[in-house]
């Protein structure tokens, strides 16, 4: 053994290390963290505030009577609590995040810096408009970029997420139908659509009629034509679709929809594939939401906030909700109320209090300015290149439901390559976790059995994709070689092993409850 002068060993011993239990339950850097409610105390605070002096309150009879039951932590305890929790998360900053349809690309830190400028983060939505001209200018500039990229007429910036944008677009369509004095109770939605599409249509009282996909994974204009009637208000089509394919008959579908007096809503979740390559306005789209948190890289934050601006064609532009930015000779103007409307502006109402997600607008604009027209196009091309590179690397071992053909920014496999192995899509995904990867989107779209939808995005290098492909190939071969246990027991190396979702749903425990007193617990 090598020793230094005070007897400290300086080279590792070679004894084999079998897994051991630890007293703490921790495993080195993987630390168990109790709930806030188990470590906080009601009389501890991490914020120093001076106790106010005596004054005559003006709360009337509305003073709180009982304590809130809100434990506090000092600053060091709070920092440690949340840092430890953060360490249990996978993130795009730490690894490839191939969730199909979610576009987990790099989140530039410049954008975070811009969003925190006092002239952005520290302005109030209702302070005098004379004191926020830069904010209105920023909204106008974002709108200009979105309209140029899409070839559309108008933009409603305020929706707060993709589904909220869908709602905005469908409200504009319903308002337009009603303005024509018509009642069209039906919306057509392809079976491959995101669940938000039918849910949105139903929120507005529409009846959803599904459109079947044809054998190649796209929508057949003939099938649409058969379903169209004076009862149909709109079709909600995702393009590129959730199978990762561009709807090549989109123009014909749009024409048929318009001929029937209906509108074409496009789900823009997959816009990342076609920025700078095609303008949706020229495809015949009437409304499309743009997920700024996907295509334009505002961070997902563990489930939001997002932003879902909606671009509108000349058929729907007049119905854009309040508030909106109107370009006037003196510059952009924020129109907030019906009292300020001009001729031809007939907003259907308002989607949100205030003006939408300024914090996301500025991040998205910083992303757009950084890329420029050339960089945006390159990003789309690289996203498509990367998805096809993964497809090419896996096509001999994995099964493509619609044949071996180029995809857009995401590649779809089904589970037939696992037939007879006893390994399911879920097992396969969980085994990826042990290899250090976030799984792909599973079991979506619904039109494919055991779907695996992989979207690598343009942020991944060739070396990163090579390792990813090699890893998936190794797993596929192990599955076929009968190493079923590797998959069924996965994940082994995550902060938690598989969680019992049935139990969570059957006896919902949705907030912390104090442990039962000892006598009760003993019963």
């Amino acid at each position, binding site marked *: 053994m090598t020793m230094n002068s005070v007897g400290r060993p300086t080279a590792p011993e070679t004894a084999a290390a079998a897994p051991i239990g630890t007293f703490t339950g921790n495993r080195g850097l993987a630390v168990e963290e109790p*709930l806030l409610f188990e470590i906080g105390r009601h009389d501890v605070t*991490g914020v120093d*505030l001076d106790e*106010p002096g005596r004054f005559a309150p*003006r*709360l009337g009879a509305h*003073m*709180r009577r009982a304590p809130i*039951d*809100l434990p*506090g932590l000092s600053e060091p305890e*709070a920092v440690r609590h949340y840092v430890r929790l953060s360490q249990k*998360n*996978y*993130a795009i*900053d730490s690894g490839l995040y191939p969730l199909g349809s979610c576009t987990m690309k790099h989140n*530039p830190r410049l954008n975070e810096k811009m969003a925190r400028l006092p*002239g952005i983060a*520290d*302005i*109030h939505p*209702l*302070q*005098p408009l004379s*004191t926020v001209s830069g904010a209105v200018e920023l909204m106008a500039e974002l709108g200009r970029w979105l309209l140029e990229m899409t070839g559309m007429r108008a933009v409603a910036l305020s929706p*707060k997420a993709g589904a909220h944008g869908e*709602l905005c677009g469908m409200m504009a369509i*319903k308002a337009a139908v009603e303005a024509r004095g018509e009642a069209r109770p039906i919306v057509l939605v392809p079976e491959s659509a995101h*669940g938000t599409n039918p849910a949105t249509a139903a929120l507005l*009282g529409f009846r959803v009629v599904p459109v079947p996909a044809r054998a190649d994974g796209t929508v057949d204009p003939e099938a649409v034509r058969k379903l169209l009637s004076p009862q149909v208000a709109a079709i909600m089509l995702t393009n590129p679709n959730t199978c990762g394919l561009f709807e*090549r008959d989109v123009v014909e579908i749009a024409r048929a929809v318009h001929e029937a007096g209906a509108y074409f809503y496009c789900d823009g979740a997959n816009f990342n594939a076609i920025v700078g*390559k095609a303008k949706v306005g020229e495809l015949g789209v009437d409304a499309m939401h743009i997920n700024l*948190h996907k295509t334009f890289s505002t961070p997902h*934050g563990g*489930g939001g*906030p997002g932003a879902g601006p909606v671009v509108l064609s000349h058929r729907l532009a007049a119905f854009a909700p309040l508030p909106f930015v109107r370009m006037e000779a003196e510059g952009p103007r924020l129109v907030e109320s019906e*009292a300020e409307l001009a001729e031809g502006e007939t907003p259907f109402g*308002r989607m*949100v*209090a205030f003006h939408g*997600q300024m*914090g996301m607008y500025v991040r998205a604009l910083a992303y757009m*300015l950084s890329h*420029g*027209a050339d960089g*945006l196009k390159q*990003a789309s091309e690289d996203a*498509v290149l990367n998805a096809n590179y993964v497809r*090419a690397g896996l096509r001999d071992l994995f099964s493509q439901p619609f044949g071996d053909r*180029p995809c*857009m920014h995401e590649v779809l496999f089904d589970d037939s390559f696992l037939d007879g192995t006893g390994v399911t899509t879920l097992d396969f995904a969980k085994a990826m976790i042990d290899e250090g990867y976030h799984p792909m989107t599973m079991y979506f779209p619904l039109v494919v059995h055991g779907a695996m939808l992989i979207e690598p995005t343009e942020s991944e*290098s060739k070396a990163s994709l090579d390792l990813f492909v090699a890893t998936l190939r190794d797993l596929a071969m192990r599955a076929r070689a009968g190493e079923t246990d590797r998959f069924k*027991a996965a994940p082994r190396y*995550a*902060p*938690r*092993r598989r969680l*019992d979702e049935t139990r969570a749903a059957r006896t919902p425990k*949705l*907030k912390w409850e104090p442990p039962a007193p000892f006598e009760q617990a003993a019963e």
Partner: protein
Amino acid sequence: MRYLPHSEADRQAMLRAIGVGAIDDLFLDIPEPLRVGALDLPRRAGELSVERTIGRMAAKNVAAGSVPFFVGAGAYRHHVPASVDHLIQRSEFLTSYTPYQPEITQGTLQVLFEFQTQVAHLTGMEVANASMYDGSTATAEAVLMAHRVTRRKKAVLSGGLHPHYRAVVEGLSKLASDTVAALPPDPAGTEDILAAIDAETSCVVVQSPSVYGQLIDLAPIAQKAHAVGALLVAVFTEVVSLGLVEPPGAQGADIVVGEGQGLGNALSFGGPYVGLFATRAKYVRQMPGRLCGETVDADGRRGFVLTLSTREQHIRRDKATSNICTNSGLCALAFSIHTTLLGETGLARLARINHMNAVALAESLSELAGVSVLNDSFFNEFTLRVPGDAASVVEALAERGVLGGVPVSRLEPGRPELADLILVASTEINTDEDRAAYAAALAEVL
């Protein structure tokens, strides 16, 4: 381009591996005439250039922190501890997706579980969800939920409800063919809302403190609503008020919704914010939005998952309770961290300071000739009546470097009877000097 890793050689090698000659061979499904030549937009720009462009726009705005600032009306400027913004920028929180794979997203999930508990405690309710977009959309969702629970379609809205919230509810209801009975604006807090509740009513929506700052006794409204089988939806726009005032849950509310921006989140010109949504346990399956629940893993260790997702759009599609998917995860985190740092002691103290500052301001301003405070009760915001046009007064104050509040006419245009009212808020950020500056400036412009 600094965000794109490929070299040209990489791209060529990858195209060869795919088996195509050029990148456009991968775009053949886009019909040729529809392919874009070039976008009429500038070329790529380095960090410095982007900072200059956006910095120029930001510099044209007057930041709240640079002036005596008294603007509220649904968004409030509070001091947020430095550690909050540091922690939410941890890569693992900031750049993670919705926790669909619970084994590797326990961080986000445990935060959501703690957030849900904090919101339930603050509102005095049994369950809370994992957040909505903001207070206004949470209110619209609460109305839809009440319609599902009661199988009725008429919402009664108090005249104290924030006019933007009312507009969001009305817009959606109109297009969904539901009925809304909105009472006229009620600055004095004297409306007879009990008379508006009838056997068709699904829910009555009441904000307290109201948009005019008035604290409302919810208990009799709950009683009347329940007597006819309707629900009480209680709304708040200033969450800090819950540190000092009786929570809606203790007054019989069935659904409590509100804006959580006041804790942990910047003003950001209106978003992103965080909608809070809480209700009674018996209605949980009619709730919109994500819910995080406790369970165990294969080794029996405690863990958390998204649960009751059979309510949600990705499972139930057109039968879902809402279309919401992405919500306000990171804003909920900021809210939760700030709440944790405050704790019971800190939040109660913060709320008292807010109230004290608002009381001091109300007393000081109402000493001016012709100026009066309408409220008989308030928390940190009140309605000021000034002689003359409130919008001009607020503009004149701004010219003197004081952001003095929101003229009610901005929220309720076309109502001359409200044209002399200003909503004025004061939080812990205001100093004695700020208040003195306001009083002096107001005296000058009147």
